[in-house]
């Protein structure tokens, strides 16, 4: 029987050989792999996965609050049978939480790399600058979408068990899927603004404040315009702030009874939102074309 303490004379077991440096001539994967790796890394960063508990607190706090809201709504519906909040209203009611989420995660994705000086290391590798910017945006959009879409799906699943008959489930699905799209619109518009601001500020805390500021900055304009004694001004007021801009799209597309009075300007809201996103992406790309080249 061989025991651990039995001396093995024939061969030196357990000796670690320093095999020296080994050159690598295996595959070096291309652009898609780099983009995919960075995307996964960024998505994990967004939720603080693979990092300390400190990085997890804030994103998961918001995820928790949103989850509780969804759970309560489902429970209320189960008890009373009343729909307290439609699927499409869900992201609107939570818009302040979406802003907070973007203000926490956006700087985590963009400002952190600026502050720690990692950015030059990325750009000293075969990663395209535009890819970096777009991947970070995609990660923030996905994180925000997931933060909202998962609770929304839970609500739908709950409802699907509650309603009677397959026809009613189809009706639910008819409400749920457009709402999911509406959540995506929220995620895209909010993320573009948040990431653009975050990419300009090196310090995370400052960036978080700046993002919240950027969302709230123009809300007085909306308030003033909407009380003007002029119908078109009232109906166009929502264009002035990203929050009401997205709300206007909701009124135009998914909601039967809009909470904003947008009149006939629905398509304009859509157009402005598209212009806002495109402009934001172009600015983001311009920002990353120059940064860290000093």
């Amino acid at each position: 029987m061989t025991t651990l303490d039995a001396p093995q004379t024939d061969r030196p077991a357990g000796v670690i050989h320093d095999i020296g440096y080994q050159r690598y001539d295996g595959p070096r994967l291309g652009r898609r792999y780099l983009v995919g790796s960075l995307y996964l890394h960024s998505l994990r960063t967004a939720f603080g996965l693979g990092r300390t508990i400190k990085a997890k607190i804030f994103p998961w706090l918001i995820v928790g609050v949103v989850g509780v809201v969804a759970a309560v709504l489902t429970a209320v519906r189960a008890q009373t049978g009343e729909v307290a909040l439609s699927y499409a209203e869900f992201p609107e009611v939570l818009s302040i939480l979406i802003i907070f989420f973007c203000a926490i995660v956006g700087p985590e994705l963009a400002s952190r790399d600026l502050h720690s000086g990692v950015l030059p290391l990325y750009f000293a590798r075969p990663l395209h600058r535009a890819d970096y910017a777009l991947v970070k945006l995609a990660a923030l959009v996905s994180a925000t979408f997931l933060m909202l879409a998962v609770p929304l799906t839970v609500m739908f699943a709950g409802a699907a068990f509650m309603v009677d008959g397959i026809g009613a489930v189809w009706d639910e699905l008819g409400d749920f899927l457009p709402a999911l799209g509406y959540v995506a619109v929220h995620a895209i518009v909010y993320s573009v603004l948040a990431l653009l601001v975050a990419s300009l500020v090196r310090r995370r805390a400052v960036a978080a404040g700046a993002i919240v500021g950027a969302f709230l900055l123009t809300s007085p304009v909306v308030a003033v315009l909407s009380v003007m004694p002029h119908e078109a001004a009232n109906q166009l007021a929502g264009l002035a702030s990203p929050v009401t801009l997205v709300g206007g799209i909701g009124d135009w597309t998914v909601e039967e009874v809009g909470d904003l009075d947008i009149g006939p300007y629905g398509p304009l809201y859509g157009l402005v939102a598209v212009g806002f996103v495109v402009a934001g992406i172009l600015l983001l790309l311009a920002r990353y074309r120059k940064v860290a080249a000093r």
Partner: protein
Amino acid sequence: MTLIATQSLTKTYGNRVTALSDLTVTVEPGIVGLVGANGAGKSTFIKIMLGLLEPTGGQARVLGLDPTVDGHQVRARVGYMPEHDCLPPDLSAAEFVTHMARMSGLPKTTARERASETLRHVGLYEERYRQVGGYSTGMKQRVKLAQALVHDPDLLLLDEPTNGLDPAGRDAMLALIERIGTEFGISVLVCSHLLGEVERICDALVAIEGGKLLRSAQLSDMTAVTEVLSVEVSEGTDELAARLAAAGLPVRRDNRLLLVPVLDPDSAGVGAGDTALDKTYDLILTAVAELDLPLHRLDQRRHRVVELFATDPARVSGPVAAGTALEGAR
């Protein structure tokens, strides 16, 4: 193959600051020192080599590629260690270097394997699972080097790798760089404002000042062993100098060192079968023994590279006023 070749390379920031002006230099594989005062244009040079900056004029070729055209190909084969802090404090070294390996296109498992292997090569073992934020400066420098090395580049660009290190840390870092250049077989371009530091490990040296080439040469030409012995004793340096002078050796004093030229082979006192060098050693050792002094060092001295810039030594060794204007623009 030529490692780096530039032709009238010029880089100006705006219209005011000239970082590089008309720099033409050819660098062969090996360990190459890029020396110059702060703001001499070293970092700008490296960034142009990486294709991170576009030159205002002239051409550059790295590993036979033009970094302004084939930037991605160049960057796939080059490792870059910046001068400044570049590590996220809340990741472990192992995770960070793995991520950087993947960003160079290494598949997932390979990236992890090579990351821990590279960290081991730079001297980080169990610490690699701790967060980088808690590391000492020396350990951070090692992680920075590891991330530059992890994808097995053909050329390493190191910008002031010994910055912020204590003397022991400097020696360790330089020894590591020397190993990379010799054992690992990777060419290294190492930037430093300390000539005395890089001359120890480099095969070739490029000195720039104010964006202009001061001198470029193989170090073997520069540091040929001279016929001078240097002696260091911890006390009684003056007595020894007097004794050696009395013995017919024209001693020169250099701080705590005594520099003794080897005896002329034809002069008196050099016996047959004895080389002039041996004889000089004997004379010095006898003198030291007779005076009973604690001998620290006795060796044959190399030409100090500084002496190569003897036309105006202050330019390289001292702080250069002309170069500091660039500091903010780098």
